[in-house]
């Protein structure tokens, strides 16, 4: 169970984390909670580039821009789902306003880090999109 979590969920996030300028990434679900931290922020911003060492894939992590409660777009996307362009994946509800979360282009939904109705804060990873 834990191995599966690491294999399935941690690899894309770790690859994306290495490329990002984030200092911390938290991933939590029923199975496990994983947190990656960086002592000093990486100068490189989230951008397409070299993938993780083992997967050779390129991930973009879509993070929350506002503090609020996450609601998936209906019907909800699932992991593995292919996006043919910029799509609205979810909304973050804050102070009664639903702020759209978009995929920022085509790709495969490699990982969903959040659950319906979950509170999210600024910069929190929501989706990993495989652009390769």
């Amino acid at each position: 169970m834990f191995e599966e979590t690491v294999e399935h969920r941690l690899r894309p996030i770790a690859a994306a984390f290495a490329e990002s300028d984030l200092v911390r990434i938290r991933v939590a679900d029923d199975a496990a909670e994983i947190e990656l931290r960086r002592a000093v922020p990486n100068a490189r911003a989230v951008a397409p580039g070299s993938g993780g060492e083992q997967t050779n894939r390129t991930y973009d992590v879509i993070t929350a821009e506002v503090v609020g409660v996450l609601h998936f777009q209906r019907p909800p996307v699932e992991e593995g789902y292919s996006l043919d362009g910029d799509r609205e994946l979810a909304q973050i509800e804050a102070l009664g306003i639903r702020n759209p979360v978009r995929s920022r282009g085509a790709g495969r939904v490699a990982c969903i880090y959040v659950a319906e109705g979950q509170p999210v804060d600024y910069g929190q990873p929501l989706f990993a999109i495989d652009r390769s």
Partner: protein
Amino acid sequence: MFRKILIANRGEIALRINRAAHELGVPTVAIFSEPDRTSLHVRHADEAFCVGPGPAARSYLNVANIISAALICGADAIHPGYGFLAENARFAQICIDHDLAFIGPPPATIASMGDKAEARRKMAEAGVPTTPGSEILRSLADARAAAQRIGYPVLLKATAGGGGKGMRVVDGEDDLPSAFATAQAEAEANFRDGRLYLERLVRKPRHIEVQVLGDRFGTIVHLGERDCSIQKPSHQKLIEEAPAPALSEPIREKLHATALAAARAVGYSNAGTLEFLVDGSEIYFMEMNTRIQVEHPITELIYGVDLVKEQIRIAAGEHLGFAQDDMSPHGYAIECRINAEDPANGFAPSAGTLVDVEFPGGPGVRVDTHIVAGSQIPPYYDSLLAKVVAVGRTRANAIARMERALSETRIEGVPTTIEICRDVLRSEAFRAGGVDVEFLPSRFIAARAVV
């Protein structure tokens, strides 16, 4: 009492509020910007929400994210600390609109004291002495007439102002037109409100302020005065002490009585501070700060009161637990602000990583800080690193203790104000007591002139 308090601030004051809440048994929620993610104020809180990136406008001033965080986590109160949203009447109203208690006075009080011209008018009505001045000036001609009546030198001020912006000293009528134009432009640019008024300039005043505390049932007490005359050339406070030294008892009592009358006149509740200029035996109301002050610890030490806990209790609808007669000061307290600033370079703030940090301990010393060895000082915020406070039975004891405490303080990695504070403490004039706000700038400029 509240279920949970969100602390809408960072740095030492966020820790200060966290401590008060925890001592009251109330869980806390921190907010933080991305560069503050590993800061002590985040670690001390029970929960924490990232509300934005480094720049304050997008994080600590991000009202939507802050309110949203409070609602999500089930907080029922917000403490704004000082700075950021602390004196923003609109923010206070938004809190209330979302059923969040704002730990401070009502929005209307914040608004009326935030408008300097309105605050002066209200105070004058309540019989509080203000420097001779004008109403809002409608034109340069208006300004010329008012200055004539008041007498030069005058101070041209933005009614929405603060921090010296939109303020000009005018020595004579010839200088008025250009001063009027630039002050108006500055006020317009900084506060989106170009309205100006005039005051008589008081040369070399002392800055003495009085702490007040009022509950929601009309009980208001004062907790004595603080002398904040040791100011940087920018008029920002560097060293404060309580009680004020070399002050005659009639003036001290006048300050206290005036502050109480002023607070009562505006029906003040929660913690507030009335700032006065003291010029010989004259006192003039300057402004009222409708929040906790940076320098509140010196009052706490000599009155044995926890002002932040009192703020929370009052906001939770409790009665003040003491009356004026219960409160008397014991001893003397001094605060030195240790800022990441270079006094040799116009107190320019600096950012960086602190490689070594040691703070003093032992008897009569209090330290409020958010830094530890390895802390990163981001470039976005206030440069205050720590407040070192010393208390003694006598003023001489307190000064000796502060000198001892500063000798134990070590911060490596950024320039600090430690040494200039030590210089002030060592000076004859400070030791004698009663210096005015020009003391540090003139000493500072004099010292540089010699070099």
